[in-house]
């Protein structure tokens, strides 16, 4: 039986994970685009990303593109699995 995930269940983190899952295979999105997509401030987004990274659900990579710093966020296999489990648990509650 699928279990609810306390890390993912928080609304902002739930939306971050959903956004990364929507990108399907080998997803990657930059920090500012993700923040604007989800309507989250930089500080808020940064804090939630740190929590997800510590749980091993995402990876954060910083690099320079055309001399500008860019922070790229990717979903890990563990993160994808845990999100699917969480969604299954939510659906079980409704069934």
């Amino acid at each position, binding site marked *: 039986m699928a279990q609810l995930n306390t890390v993912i*269940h928080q609304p902002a983190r739930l939306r971050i994970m959903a956004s990364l899952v929507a990108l*399907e295979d080998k997803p990657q999105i930059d920090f500012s685009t993700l923040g604007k997509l989800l309507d989250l401030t930089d500080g808020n987004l940064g804090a939630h990303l740190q929590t997800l990274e510590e749980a091993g659900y995402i990876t954060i990579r910083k690099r320079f593109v055309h001399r500008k710093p860019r922070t790229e966020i990717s979903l890990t296999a563990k993160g994808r699995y845990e999100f699917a489990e969480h969604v299954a648990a939510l659906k079980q509650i409704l069934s």
Partner: protein
Amino acid sequence: MNITQQDARNSLAQIEDTLTRTRNAIGQGASGGILIAWGVIWALGFSADQFAPKLAQSFWPFLIVGGALASWICGARSRPRIQSSVGARIGFFWLALFAYAVLWFFLLHSESRPGQPGLHFDALIGQDDAAVQQQLGAFFATVPMFAYVVGGLWLGRFFIWLGVGVTVLTVAGYFFMPAWFNLWMAATGGGSLIVAGAYIRRFWRQTYGPA
């Protein structure tokens, strides 16, 4: 961890909303520039068909190659912001669609020539018959619109309206003003794509900022 059914319903609704927003962002990321590029190509190509049909026959292949190149550049430019296999899949979908569209046109055209089976490349290149040229124009103008209508089911209603709108304009021009069909397509078809592309670009820049 225990939550109520209402909480579960809200969470699933949030997930669904985020999936839709993200898919829209993937679809819109490159499509503004691509639509503008193809709008300009339609305007140039159909204008050439109207005013210099002989020249147009050798002009179109260059325009199509230029459009494919511009589409690829627009896709590559949007990659650093959102990188997803969905974007690559959309690219392959367009390639497959046009490969099939060319095949269908050959099949339909060879059927109209009893006793002459096989692929008639003059159906596409070096076509002197104005009526077939217009069929060709209407066919290849509506094929991508079909793709926009279908793609709009996943990427947002805007694309459905764009596809339906340009299809209606194409059919209206084909049947009601055959003498000015190419000019009509240059102005309304090309114009619609340019306006739609500019609208998406503006929306994208306002939402996500300059690339």
